[in-house]
């Protein structure tokens, strides 16, 4: 049961108000994204959910439990949540297996049970064959999988992800995006995901919170946010976007109402929304060059 209620949270660093009167309620099992430019307070909000920062006022409930409020503060280690850090934070002195097994060891689970569960988790994040490797022998993407595995191993009801993909190259990023989404679907846990990348927010989220200067500018599904951005900050931050409906099938993505289709990842299928940025639309000039129609 991980419905999350955030009530009137305010956080200051010195005289600097980082989060002001933040209120939100996340439904159990949803994929929530905090989207915003760097310095907007989204990471601070996430860290308050985790318990690394203490709110100055307001309450946070995870499930039925008040974890932060007047006179109550549950430290992170007692909140029972999983988290993936931007820098991976994979422990360099432990091998992959031990990294992932750590939360289970803390729960004093018998060793063979730990073994079984770690191997299952490693399977989920596709690094079972690297179980005995040290982190320094892994690529960035593999290290991030270890971090993800570690966050999932204890089967938390809530998983927090702090810009987990920003250190990866473009191709890996796309792959991991898909996998995180898959894991979310499979484990049906509540995920809170922090990013500044709109396409990540767009493709993964159930609900997006656009955050600016410590406050929620707009909240809603990707289609709502992108299709109907609030005037002012949100529309400026997101830029213009063209939303078309489409359908993916056998590695082809067909845009509805048109005959044209394009290649896409074969793993995707079914009806979808296709977002096209104006600056990604090119025309072919007479001499065969690509010409960008809109610039940013």
């Amino acid at each position: 049961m991980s419905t999350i209620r955030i009530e009137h949270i305010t956080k200051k660093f010195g005289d600097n108000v980082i989060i002001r009167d933040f209120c939100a309620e996340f439904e159990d099992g949803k994929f929530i994204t905090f989207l915003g430019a760097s310095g907007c307070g989204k990471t601070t909000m996430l860290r308050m959910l985790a318990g690394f920062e203490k709110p100055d006022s307001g309450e946070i409930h995870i499930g039925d439990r008040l974890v932060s409020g007047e006179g109550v503060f549950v430290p992170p280690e007692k909140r029972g949540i999983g988290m993936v850090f931007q820098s991976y934070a994979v422990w360099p002195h432990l091998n992959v297996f031990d990294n992932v097994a750590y939360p289970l060891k803390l729960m004093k689970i018998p060793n063979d049970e730990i073994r079984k569960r770690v191997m299952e988790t490693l399977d989920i994040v596709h690094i079972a064959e690297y179980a005995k490797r040290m982190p320094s022998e892994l690529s960035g993407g593999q290290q991030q999988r270890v971090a993800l595995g570690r966050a999932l191993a204890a089967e938390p009801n809530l998983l927090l992800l702090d810009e987990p993909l920003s250190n990866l190259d473009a191709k890996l990023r796309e792959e991991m995006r898909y996998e995180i989404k898959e894991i979310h679907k499979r484990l049906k846990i509540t995920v809170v995901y922090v990013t500044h990348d709109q396409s990540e927010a767009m493709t993964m989220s159930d609900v997006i919170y656009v955050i600016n200067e410590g406050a929620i500018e707009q909240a809603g599904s990707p289609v709502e946010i992108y299709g109907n951005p609030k005037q002012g900050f949100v529309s400026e931050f997101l830029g213009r976007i063209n939303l078309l409906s489409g359908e993916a099938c056998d590695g082809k993505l067909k845009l509805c109402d048109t005959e044209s289709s394009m290649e896409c990842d074969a793993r995707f299928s079914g009806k979808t929304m296709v977002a096209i940025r104006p600056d990604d639309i090119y025309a072919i000039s007479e001499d065969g060059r690509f010409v960008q129609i809109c610039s940013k």
Partner: protein
Amino acid sequence: MLTKQKSEKFTPDVKWLFILGIVAFLLVFQVFPLLYLVFRAFFGEGHFSFDSFKRIYSYPLNWQCLKNTLITSTFTMIFGVCIAIPLAWLVGRTNLHGRRFFRTIFVTTYMVPPYVGAMAWLRLLNPTVGTLNVFLKNLLGLKSMPFNIYSVGGLIWVLTTFYYPYAFITISRAMENMDPSLEESSRISGASPLKTLFNVTLKLMLPSIVAAALLVFVAAASCYGIPSIIGAPGKIYTVTTRIVDYVYVGSKEGLSDATSLAVFLMALAFLILYISEFAVGKRDYITVSGKSVRPATVDLGKWRIPLTILVSIFAFIIVGLPFATVFATSFTVNMGKSIFAKGNFTLKYWGIITSRRTIIKSSLNSVAAAALAATFGIIVCIIMAYLLKRTRARGRQIPDFLITVGSGTPSVVIALALIMTMSGRFGISIYNTMAIMIIAYMIKYMLMGMRTVVSGLSQLSLDLEEAAQICGAGWLRRLKDVLLPLVLPSVVAGWFLIFMPCFYELTMSNLLYSDKTKTLGVELYLYQTYHSQQTAAALAGGILIVVTILNLALYKLTKGKFSI
């Protein structure tokens, strides 16, 4: 549910219990004795007065001493750091031949008592019959001796050879821990290796370099052995030799005068710490992050052989010569003759040190006292470094400051302050036990451990610890599972850095030992003072051999991970 929340609210935080415990320890065993002494200097006659200060600081000889201390420590710091940086880089980050060997060699001077080394340099470079002086004079056909050890320059030289290892150990540790991608990105942006070294490597190393400089300065300024042996004959007195002059008068006034003068060294240590904090500011570069990387080695190319030769020559001068002298002394009957003269070679001094019951007993005492001081000391350092680097508590810098001031305080002052306050008058009676020695050692030498752990900790990304916390690990668990293993190389190095000087500590042990707690330093002092330079040399040689073996064993056992 509600009751559970209540109990969570009132759980006392283990972390703060530990931190407060250690702060209390520092207050009782360090701050109180030293404050008491300073208090006495002001309230000597029952009422507040500046008389003792006025008397001390208006005496021209004392000003000369202050000046000498400032000059020698400043130059020792500059030279020490300038020597340590290239050596640390060559040994830590390049493919220099025999890196491992040089790494051991360059810390050797840390493992012998400075006064023994000072005697060796005195034999090599005295202006009348110095072995090296005579050799160079004949070689170069000079009219006079090229060097005079009894000069400010000579004092700086010997201080440098003994205190650069503090910088070398600190800096090379940081060099080896650095994330090479930071350098690689500079290379990729088109910077030459040399430019990268100056623009990236050294800048990233700045906190460690400043910490190293601080250590060298404080150690040189509060050193007594070297200035008393090298400085005194050339009439170069420092604050420490002056303090001992006052203390040995053995009167209450002498003690007040010594304290008044010692306040200068304490203030100096504080000032240096303050300046270094200011210089480094917030620039704590995190170089060990949760992203794991392989350490990279710089290829020296055509410079590999010439640099190896250069480093060898340097090692020979700074370590080979004096240590050969120490060993030669330990085998010589009559030091007026060559060791190779007929009948002048003997093993009897080695016989003495290995057969005398008291020496063996004292060695065991020293091992125990130094090991305990190093262990407790490093625990204090870890917790206080954590307080400094990982909490936002107000006044978190104070323990760091206390530890620095303790180190800057001359040994003799620490020992006397402890005698006055720890022999029952104020409810604590540990005089004539090993405990008082261990506490004295900790006050004097914790700084080495503190700096090492602090720089280890500030290179460690906070994420690594938070990751454990979110996994459900409480504070002690995180300390044990994540923080300690990751700073372990620093912790082990810090432990050794505390252990070594305690192992052969002389001044404080000499005042604090009792029949059952005689230490190696006391023995060494007795032999050094009562006519047996050779026995002292053999003892120092023995210490060096044992410590080197220990260090090598540690290296082998941990497959190169730990050693100093």
